[in-house]
């Protein structure tokens, strides 16, 4: 490494002996602080991806610039195939691709999406920091063991992001600034050893630093092309010419100066929106698109260790919103399960109009039933019968309707028709059963005709015995006075009937012994 004797290196090559530099003072290394490891997530296609999930067919371009001078700032692959590229004036782009869907860049939407992604990222660590416009910084040193190591953590991040339909580039470094710079290079660099950091950073072109184009051009004109070139410049001169802030950037990237990052705090409700590229009634597409919002919601729920019980799905069409609310037997944080339930519900409900936008509201969050964190992280937490049982109830209700699924309970009551009730499944009864009762009950006793003084049910009924008198209920006006008998019908079934003790002394069928 040639070095002019007059120039004082900005950072000495990492040897044991450190030369005492001139002003400005070289900050002391941050060895006293606990070692950190930062993961930078760069959603570099966010301006495009906030608008829709790419269906691979519709060309879409996001434009920005002054009125009249709008230029393409990002376009999807379908548009790129038609010859579009960033920087192209909108007029030229429309000439190339007449069917191009055009959206003006929407920084507010991008900021909202980044915050939702930050909430999702909180499941991986308690220190997530926003790096607008489209990056997140996560301190992950403490999370590595929980997620089974760096590679496994990154795999999970990639998997989730893919499921949400975003494009991601990531990098790992001992300092947040270095992670962000490495991330700009889009090489998925993983630098865990601080000793190797300066070497890796030195290779980066200056564009990765995020400094203004003006400054980068000035440096390039001086023959300073990479971060490494910068590091060989004298500190004092560098700071004087390019601003003290630039020097600070280099110090923080190398970990000589601590950068304090602002912690992102999760808001305890979720509201997500997603525009569809083309309006649709296709349930499968709607479900797939909703998966992104559900995946974001799942991340938020995991970080808070909460669940949703009454999520509301909104399908926005030109005249309003059609809402679909789910009511679950118990709170859940499982996106796959919610997707399944939504698919079931959608299959059986009529969408009023073609849908243009999707919404998802978490509703109030609730504590998860005592599920250990380890199970939660596996994603597939089904397996315990109790939980699988409750999920079955939810699944059946999603398709058949809420009333279609119920449990039974016993009530302390002598009138046979009032001794039981349909209840929420799993309700424990404290009462004891009654002997001599049939297994099937008619919800309403059925009046029987009489022939020759004998009750008749597709033939004469042969009384086998068992006269039981039930007289009760005088206090609430629904009093009964009946004599119950067991009889056999001509088809061979044993039935339970009664005769009123008061005139007109009709016969009723009340149950079947089965």
């Amino acid at each position, binding site marked *: 490494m040639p070095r002019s004797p007059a120039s004082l290196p900005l950072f000495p090559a990492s040897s044991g002996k450190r030369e005492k530099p001139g002003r400005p003072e070289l900050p002391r290394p941050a060895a006293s602080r606990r070692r950190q490891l930062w993961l930078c997530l760069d959603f570099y296609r966010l301006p495009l991806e906030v608008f829709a999930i790419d269906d691979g067919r519709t060309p879409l371009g996001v434009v920005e610039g002054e009125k009249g001078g709008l230029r393409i700032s990002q376009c999807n692959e379908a548009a790129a195939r038609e010859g579009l590229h960033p920087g192209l004036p909108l007029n030229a782009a429309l000439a190339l691709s007449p069917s191009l869907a055009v959206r003006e860049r929407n920084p507010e939407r991008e900021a909202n999406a980044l915050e939702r992604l930050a909430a999702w990222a909180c499941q991986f660590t308690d220190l997530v920091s926003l790096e607008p416009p489209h990056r997140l910084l996560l301190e992950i040193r403490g999370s590595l063991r929980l997620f089974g190591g760096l590679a496994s953590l990154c795999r999970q991040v990639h998997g989730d992001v893919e499921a949400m339909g975003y494009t991601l580039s990531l990098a790992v470094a001992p300092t947040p600034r270095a992670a962000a710079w490495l991330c700009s290079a889009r090489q998925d660099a993983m630098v865990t050893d601080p000793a190797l950091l300066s070497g890796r950073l030195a290779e980066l072109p200056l564009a990765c630093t995020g400094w203004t184009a003006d400054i980068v051009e000035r440096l390039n004109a001086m023959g300073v092309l990479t971060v490494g070139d910068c590091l060989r410049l004298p500190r004092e001169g560098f700071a004087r010419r390019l601003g003290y802030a630039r020097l600070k950037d280099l110090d923080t990237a190398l970990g000589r100066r601590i950068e304090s990052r602002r912690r992102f705090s999760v808001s305890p409700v979720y509201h997500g929106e997603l525009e569809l590229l083309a309006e649709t009634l296709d349930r499968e597409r709607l479900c797939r698109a909703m998966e992104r919002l559900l995946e974001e919601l799942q991340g938020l729920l995991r970080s808070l260790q909460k669940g949703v019980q009454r999520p509301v799905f909104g399908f926005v069409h030109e005249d309003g919103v059609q809402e679909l609310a789910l009511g679950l037997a118990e709170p859940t944080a499982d996106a796959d399960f919610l997707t399944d339930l939504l698919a079931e519900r959608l299959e059986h409900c009529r969408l009023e109009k073609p849908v243009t936008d999707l919404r998802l509201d978490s509703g109030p969050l609730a504590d998860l039933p005592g599920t250990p964190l380890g199970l939660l992280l596996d994603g597939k937490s089904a397996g315990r*019968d109790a939980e699988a049982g409750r999920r079955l109830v939810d699944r059946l209700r999603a398709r058949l309707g809420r009333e279609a699924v119920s*449990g039974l309970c016993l009530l302390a009551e002598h009138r046979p028709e009032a001794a039981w009730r349909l209840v929420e499944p799993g309700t424990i009864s404290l009462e004891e059963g009654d002997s001599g009762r049939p297994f099937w009950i008619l919800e309403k006793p059925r009046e029987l005709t009489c022939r020759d003084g004998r009750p008749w049910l597709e033939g004469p009924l042969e009384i086998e015995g068992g006269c039981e008198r039930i007289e009760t209920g005088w206090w609430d006006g629904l009093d009964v006075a009946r004599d119950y008998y067991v009889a056999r019908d001509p088809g061979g079934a044993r039935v339970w009937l009664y005769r009123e003790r008061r005139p007109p002394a009709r016969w009723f069928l009340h149950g079947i012994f089965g």
Partner: protein
Amino acid sequence: MKAGLDELLSHPRIWRGRHAPRDVETLSSGHPPLDQVLPGGGWPRAGLIEILVERWGTGELRLIVPLLQHFSRNEGQAGERGWIAWIAPPYVPYAPALADAGVDVSRVLLVHARDDVRSLWATEQALRSAGCEVVLAWADKAAGQSLRRLQLAAEENGLPVILFRPAAALEAPSPAVLRLHLAAGDQACLAVVKSRGGRPARLPIRDLFDQVHA
């Protein structure tokens, strides 16, 4: 010599009457005469069991109540308490009678379905959910295809599913592991129409339920 013969006879492709294949687990039906004619000495632990009846209410519930009692009892492991699912029953099961017969009413899951397609779907969901101990289902019409799905789902998940159908279905073939026909009337009897690894048999109802009639 004997060992060699046993080895030969244990080959899965050799069928011997009245002997269940070795790996089939069974549960006592609670009716000794029935256990005697069922291969392996009871209900198969997993798979589709069809009970065909002339009319609802001719004894089909009494037939299976001991099985429901069995599933009500096994509360040893806290996590293993699944539903006793009743899917599309023709009437409402009467809770006081079930409780009296030793069935845990709090574990009964009643599912109402508008048609056979929905009830067969619900049955399959119940089998695949890992949340049930046993599934009882009622259907008037069921295509061979959907029966095969039930049989497969039951076998894969190690659960018994008992499907009650009208006797008219006797003529159609079925992939069920066990098929019983409950004939009512004067010659009331229970016929084992098909049993994997067993033989057809016929039992007078009086032998089965004599304790009730006594």
